[in-house]
Each structure stands twice: as structure tokens, then as C-alpha cells.
């Protein structure tokens, strides 16, 4: 059994990177491996946007990530600075930055790049999408 950390740099819609990351994570978990957490960086932070609203016959990656996180107890972590630059805010970020709305789902926590690096150190393998 190995411990993985997954980094998602691809956006929630418009590229398949995030979908491939999701499938890879599901596969790793089904084989009995551990996933310490999923770290969303660069355009990957858009995956946490709770306002994502695709047509009913399309993949809803935002929902898929939150479902995977609750079913397998996997932590979803956004890079907070990457998220803020792109207008993805938690309730706390909205408060601190004097914004009227927030859009990140509660299942995604905001963290720093340090969480990615310590995650890499504690895992056997980092896989980026």
C-alpha cells in the first residue's frame, strides 16, 4: 500500500485534467492505497467553486470531488493565494477581504503551499494533473 498526494492544476471545465485526476484518485483508492489529500493549485482552484452548474447530462466535477471527499474521507485543499487571485473565496476570505459573496464549498479548505510540500514529504508519490 502506498500513500499518494494528488495535485490538480486543471480547471473544473474546459480541460480534462481534473476529470483524469478524479478517475486516478478513485482508482488509487479502490486498489487500497491511501490519498493524503487533493491539493488544488493554479486553475485547479476553480474545482471548489460551488456555483459550478453544468447541464444535467454533463459531468459535475465540483460535485464529484465533494462526493469523493465525503465517501473516502479525503481532504480537499485549495491554495489560498491561487484561489484569491482567481476570485474563489471561502466565507472567511470574503469577510477578511470585505467582499459580499463567497463561492468555495465548505468541503474545500483553504491552505498554503506549505501543506502541499509537507504532503509531498509525507507521501510516497506526488501525481499532478
Amino acid at each position, binding site marked *: 500500500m502506498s500513500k499518494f498526494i494528488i495535485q490538480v492544476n486543471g480547471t473544473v471545465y474546459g480541460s480534462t485534467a481534473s476529470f483524469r485526476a478524479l478517475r486516478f484518485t478513485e482508482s488509487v483508492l479502490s486498489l487500497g492505497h491511501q490519498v493524503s489529500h487533493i491539493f488544488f*493549485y*493554479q486553475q485547479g482552484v476553480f474545482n471548489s467553486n460551488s456555483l459550478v452548474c453544468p447541464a444535467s447530462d454533463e459531468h459535475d466535477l465540483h460535485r464529484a470531488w465533494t462526493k469523493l471527499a465525503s465517501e473516502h474521507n479525503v481532504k480537499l485543499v485549495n491554495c489560498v493565494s491561487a484561489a484569491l487571485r482567481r476570485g474563489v473565496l471561502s466565507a472567511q476570505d470574503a469577510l477578511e477581504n470585505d467582499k459580499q459573496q463567497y463561492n468555495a464549498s465548505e468541503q474545500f479548505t483553504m491552505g*498554503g503551499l*506549505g501543506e502541499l*510540500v*509537507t504532503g*509531498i*514529504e509525507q507521501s510516497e508519490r506526488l501525481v*499532478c494533473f
Partner: protein
Amino acid sequence: MKKICVIFRKSPIGNTSSREGLDFAMLSASFEQEVSIIFTDEAVLHLLPEQQPELVGSKDYLSTFKALSLYDIETVLVCRDSAVQFGITAKDFNFEAELASEKHIQTLIQQANEVVVY
């Protein structure tokens, strides 16, 4: 401690990928990881001096590359084939870096625990 190899592939102009890659590289180094850096493809353009990223709406993160040695990032390689394609020679370099053959780069990648591409 892990050996982390950060590969830059994209141009400094027109996207912000390298800026976030650089943040990752420096943060990793400050968390006591052994970080090495490779510039290849269009990313060799990072080495050119006198660029003004502000004119195209970017923050001037390019000058931060000069600080790599302060973060104990000693191995900074530039793909020789890519440099030739873009007409860049070592005397053009704006910060400390070494031209490297494909084989040299392959060896560095093989020695790394993790390879991250920006």
C-alpha cells in the same frame, strides 16, 4: 527531505504558470526540500535580461529568479537544445544557470523523488 525537480516549460509572457511554479519551488526550498530547476522549451525565455513584464500586465516575478541561490537552489539547468532554438547563449543569462545537455537533464530527473512541471 525529498529531491524535487521543478521543470518550467512555458513562456514568461502570456501566462502566469511560471510565477506559480516559482512560488512552489521557493516554498519547497524554504521547507528544507532539495530543489532543482530546469528550463526547457519556451521557458528558456525566462533567462533573457531587461524584460518588462508589467507592460503586458504581469507582476515582475522574473527578477525573483535571481534569488534562487538565497533559497539554496543551486541546480538550475537550461536545456541547450531549447536555448539554441531561441538563439539564447549562456552570456545572455540574467541569472545564475547552466546550459545542460539532454542527458544531463535526464540524469537530474532520474535522481529526483518528484518531478513537477509548470
